[in-house]
């Protein structure tokens, strides 16, 4: 393409323009950086309220010296305990008599209350308060360890739910011997305590687990449990603890709700069970019966959150031996109080992490012996004190320790056991209160603050996107004007937030909220001064927003979150068909054919991208993993290796074919793409081949050599792709252009002969043709993009590497379509949005799921045998977030692709920078919008049954997505600035 000549205005000073452009590219960076900061603040605010976490201590309790102290008198222990856990047994199911006819669930399970009235020394009903999250797994942990389990129990491993803390189950197993337990019911117990399954007698199994998954099935589990417990109950001497976990009441609640005939039927069945068990142990004063609910249910029968109905569960204690001080019917205790109580009644040490207090009535005994209660309280207080001194999160709680010291002094000084008990109990209650505040409560105001910041930044992004369109001249001047406003607003907000927060003692949240909202208000105030041109909204822009909304709506249902990869493929294929329809509208037949071809390719790519997968638990059995050689291994298959090599050869050829459409496969391109990229991809293939051979049992003899070669290859590649290539790009500035000199003497002569003086005088004797001029920006930036792709690809498993190559191909296809259909100018937001949408699709295609378990931890050892900070982290980040990084980096291509420079036009260069920033905000609108809808759905669904299994991990993925895409946009804006400056240097 000939270089256009243009008259240079006499007044222009290129050097001044150069520094002006540099300033423009610098100030443009502030936009993505600011929105990134807003998103981070919003995420932190939301996560502070939502993601509860708690560190776990692995210590196991032993009986302290106090047990043998002469002052200590403990209640007589039982030989056997029967625990009947009725899932979701709300307190009013057993504890409320009512008038009779109000609700189906009242006055049905009446045995507990009747017994507690007729034999108050033998039986009692309590209202137990469970701590949120009221989900079975967390409740079972609490009921056995006496602690406050949260979603993330730091210290536990991600793969298994096995309880590593001290628990009364563990204490029973270690003190009475393995196999002294019998179990029937929900198999969650076995994943928490695998050793429960050892219960056996003379080769006769005493463990009968049932799957808890199918909520629609009300009877299978319960019928199974009931049929198994009778024979076990008769063989009293074969076990010390019998656990029976009934699920029917919970399932009836989920399926039909509490106030339904089905619930009544279920509760009647449970009443019969309780009655029969009571009858079975009536003659045995060495057996304790505990009937309880792990949590309650709300009016709709669901649970997981912290409403009254969900946290109030029922507890019923019974023994034919009088062991209780008669209690008031309405006595309310904490659910975890059961743990120290059971510990004393089973004669085992109180679990190390216990935070509960002993139940007074059971410690006092029928003769109301306060020395027994005080002794129990003292032992528990000692245990809690020991725990607190080991635990890092209790610093700065000295006032609680003072209560303990006061109680201990009283114990040593007096025999007023009632007062001593009160002091010890006060200490335990105060401690529990602190723990609750720190670990176990959704902080809804904080979550809402996060959502408000997300919403406001979404609005600000929209305003920015709508205002900074091509009609705005000198965007950098406006940014110069806006930046101090935003900064000042932020500082004001910070100060106001900190001040108000200090008064309300919510300083962290208020400060963050104030900072974010203040800067947005400053932005809004500044925007008033910027001339707004109302340009008509394109149909493509509507489509882009629709895509964001449709993706966001998926978070409203656990099913769509589980099947997100397929849903996204469906959306992308739909978008492909819209592209196809648009292609058919092109008037030019040749362009139409090109567009139709690429649309069809895009459709096929969107479908194929759904194919590589690792199934998550909830997808089974409707899903087969194909990411690895088999579902049980994490070794790639030979087929994958072969395809990886094929990709290594073909992908550079594909990139070449796209560059050739603009004659840009010139200059540095053949070396960079044709040779460099191909060699790197082939070496990645070699690495995985070595890995494959190493995993083969026949090559055991050479493992060490193979390992060495493997690391040589991977480290070499790391150096080339992560360090070398970007450095070479920055220093060398590899333009994909070829300059051709043409002698025009002939042309002039001919023109003169023809008497065409005009042409003759306008044609210069020697002209310069620049091949690839029409894609100067795009080809230059593409080389950097390709090198980052190589770095990301290096950190992917073979199938992941193939998927990433597919992503590059699909991005190029979309870019070509955007060019042919003129999408980049009609609607600068639609291509960035679709690229960002694709990134989530390819996240799944690279063997990931929205679960913590799907993180491919083994790539940590890609470059080294042990964990080495920078290498390990880069490998893990690129492996997990690679698709998002690539998507963010691809966004400037929606401006640069097939864009030719306007020589010596400073204004045009600045306008291009403006367009890059605008495209970046387009992708951020998608990423931020997605995080926003996710947060809203998470707040709404925080009481959903699946909140911890499905929605919380998806929230974490949405957070990681927005961070990765935003950061990649910041980086890509920086690189784009370099490209614009560099091209201006060459052509300016």
């Amino acid at each position, binding site marked *: 393409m000939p270089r256009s000549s243009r008259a240079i205005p006499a007044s222009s000073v290129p050097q001044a323009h150069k520094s002006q452009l540099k300033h423009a590219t610098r100030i443009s960076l502030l936009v993505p950086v600011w929105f990134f900061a807003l998103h981070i603040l919003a995420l932190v605010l939301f996560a502070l309220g939502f993601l509860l976490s708690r560190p776990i201590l692995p210590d196991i309790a032993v009986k302290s010296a106090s047990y043998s102290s002469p002052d200590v008198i403990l209640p007589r222990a039982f030989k056997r305990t029967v625990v009947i856990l009725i899932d979701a047994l709300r307190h009013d199911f057993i504890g409320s008599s009512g008038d009779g006819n109000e609700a189906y669930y009242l006055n049905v399970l009446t045995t507990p209350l009747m017994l507690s009235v007729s034999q108050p020394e033998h039986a009692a009903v309590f209202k137990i308060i469970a701590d949120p999250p009221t989900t079975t797994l967390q409740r079972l942990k609490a009921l056995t360890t006496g602690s406050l389990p949260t979603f993330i129990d730091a210290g536990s491993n991600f793969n298994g739910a096995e309880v590593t803390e001290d628990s009364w189950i563990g204490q029973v197993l270690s003190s009475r011997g393995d196999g002294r337990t019998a179990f029937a019911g929900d198999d969650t117990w076995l994943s928490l305590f695998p050793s429960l399954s050892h219960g056996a007698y003379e080769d006769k199994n005493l463990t009968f687990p049932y799957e808890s998954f199918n909520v629609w099935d009300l009877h299978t589990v319960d019928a199974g449990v009931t049929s198994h417990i009778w024979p076990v109950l008769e063989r009293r001497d074969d076990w010390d603890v019998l656990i029976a976990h009934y699920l029917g009441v919970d399932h009836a609640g989920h399926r039909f709700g509490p106030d339904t005939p089905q619930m009544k039927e279920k509760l009647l069945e449970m009443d019969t069970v309780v009655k029969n068990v009571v009858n079975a142990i009536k003659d045995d004063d060495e057996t304790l019966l505990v009937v309880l609910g792990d949590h309650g249910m709300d009016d709709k029968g669901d649970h997981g959150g912290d409403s009254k109905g969900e946290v109030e569960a029922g507890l019923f204690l019974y023994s034919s031996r009088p062991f209780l001080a008669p209690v008031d019917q309405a006595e309310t205790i904490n659910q975890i109080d059961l743990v120290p109580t059971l510990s004393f009644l089973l004669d085992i040490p109180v679990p190390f992490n216990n935070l509960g207090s002993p139940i007074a009535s059971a410690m006092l005994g029928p003769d109301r012996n306060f020395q027994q209660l005080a002794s129990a309280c003292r032992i528990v207080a000692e245990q809690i004190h020991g725990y607190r001194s080991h635990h890092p999160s209790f610093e700065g709680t000295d006032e609680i320790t003072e209560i303990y010291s006061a109680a201990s002094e009283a114990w040593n000084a007096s025999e007023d056991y009632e007062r001593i008990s009160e002091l010890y109990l006060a200490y335990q209650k105060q401690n529990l209160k602190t723990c609750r505040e720190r670990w176990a409560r959704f902080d809804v105001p904080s979550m809402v603050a996060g959502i408000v910041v997300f919403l406001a930044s979404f609005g600000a992004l929209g305003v920015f996107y709508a205002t900074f369109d091509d009609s705005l001249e000198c965007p950098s001047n406006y940014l110069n004007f806006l930046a101090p406003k935003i900064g000042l607003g932020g500082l004001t907000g910070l100060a106001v937030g900190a001040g108000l927060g200090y008064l309300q003692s919510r300083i962290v949240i208020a400060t963050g909220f104030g900072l974010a909202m203040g800067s947005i208000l400053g932005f809004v105030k500044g925007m008033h001064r910027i001339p707004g041109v109302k340009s008509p909204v394109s149909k493509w822009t509507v489509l882009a927003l629709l895509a964001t909304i449709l993706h966001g709506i998926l978070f409203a*249902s656990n*099913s*769509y979150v589980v099947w997100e990869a*397929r849903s996204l493929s469906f959306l992308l*294929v739909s978008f492909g068909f819209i592209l196809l329809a*648009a292609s*058919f509208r092109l008037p030019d037949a040749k362009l*139409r054919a090109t567009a139709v071809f690429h649309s069809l390719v895009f459709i*096929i790519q969107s479908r194929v991208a759904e194919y590589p997968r690792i199934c998550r638990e909830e997808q089974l059995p409707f899903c087969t993993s194909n990411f690895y050689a088999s579902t049980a291994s994490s070794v790639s298959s030979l087929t994958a290796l072969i395809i990886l090599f094929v990709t290594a050869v073909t992908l550079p050829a594909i990139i070449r074919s796209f560059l050739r459409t603009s004659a840009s496969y010139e200059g540095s391109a053949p070396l960079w793409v044709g040779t460099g990229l191909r060699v790197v991809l082939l070496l990645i293939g070699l690495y995985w081949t070595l890995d494959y051979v190493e995993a083969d049992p026949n090559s055991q003899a050479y493992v060490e050599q193979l390992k060495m070669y493997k690391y040589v290859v991977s480290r070499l590649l790391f150096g080339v792709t992560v360090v070398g290539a970007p450095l070479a790009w920055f220093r060398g500035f590899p333009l994909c252009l070829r300059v051709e000199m043409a002698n025009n003497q002939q042309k002039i002569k001919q023109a003169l002969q023809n008497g065409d003086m005009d042409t003759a005088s306008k044609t210069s004797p020697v002209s310069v043709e620049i091949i690839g001029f029409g894609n100067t920006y795009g080809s230059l930036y593409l080389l950097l993009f390709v090198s980052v792709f190589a770095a990301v690809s290096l950190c992917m498993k073979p199938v992941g590497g193939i998927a990433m190559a597919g992503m590059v191909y699909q991005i190029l296809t979309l870019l070509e379509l955007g060019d042919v259909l003129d999408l980049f100018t009609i609607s600068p937001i639609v291509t960035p949005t679709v690229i960002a949408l694709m990134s989530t699709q390819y996240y799944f295609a690279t063997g990931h799921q929205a679960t913590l378990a799907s993180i491919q931890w083994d790539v940590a050892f890609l470059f080294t045998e042990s964990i080495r900070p920078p290498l390990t982290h880069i490998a893990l980040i690129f492996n997990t977030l690679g698709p998002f990084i690539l998507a963010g980096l691809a966004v400037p291509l929606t401006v640069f692709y097939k864009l030719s420079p306007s020589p010596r036009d400073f204004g045009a260069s600045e306008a291009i920078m403006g367009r890059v920033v605008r495209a970046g905000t387009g992708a951020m609108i998608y990423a931020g919008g997605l995080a926003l809808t996710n947060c809203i759905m998470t707040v709404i669904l925080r009481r959903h049954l699946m909140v911890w299994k499905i929605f919380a991990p998806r929230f974490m993925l949405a957070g990681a997505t927005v961070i990765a895409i935003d950061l990649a946009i910041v980086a890509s804006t920086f690189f784009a600035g370099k490209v614009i400056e560099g091209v201006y240097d060459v052509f300016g």
Partner: protein
Amino acid sequence: MARIKSTPRQIATPSAPTSATAVPYKPNTLFPENVITSSALLAFPIVTVILSSLLPSDPVKILGYSLPAVALIQAVNILFTNPAPEPVAKSSGNKKKKQAKNTVSTTILGLVLSMLLTPFIHLIYVLFGAPVTVSIPATFLLSAHTALLALFPILCTYPLDGVTWTNLVALKAPVTPAYTAALGTIAGAWLGAVPIPLDWDREWQIWPVTVVFGAYVGNALGRLVGAVFSGKEKML
């Protein structure tokens, strides 16, 4: 209903696709228009109800058995509502008879063509996410039903030439009941996929029941929209 009196051939002129303005939909001369339209509009809701109540039990069987019936209903509809896309300009003495004959042959041709295009529709369903290796009979029969609902009337109404079909795919063709019914079928089938992933464990969630249902409902609604807005220049 405003209609431009012109022959469908005019569309086939080698002008740029943007200039296509003619409407290939013409008033029926054999029966009063409103009778045909209302009976056609009634037929499909009835079929929809019958099919959707039977489908969950054995989709393949029901879809297979109902296919000839649907083809017959469609053919009858087309015979009575859509004149053949042949030029009516050469109006000779027995014009009516000739036209009727043309309509019959066009309908048969359309039926054959839509059956031939069924594998192509099957492919589109697979691209949208239908299973590749399993449930092939179900997907194929779904495709056959879709072809009868969406393609068959269009094949009988529009001339088979590049420009017309380019406009049809580009959503630029003028509004006719056949065209809106086809678009309605596509939209309905698309929406029909939405409830499939939900974990409600209902028997009607099995493939391809919801899509069949959506296609039929969409077809009926599209037909209704087409009858009301017929003659409007462009879709979008």
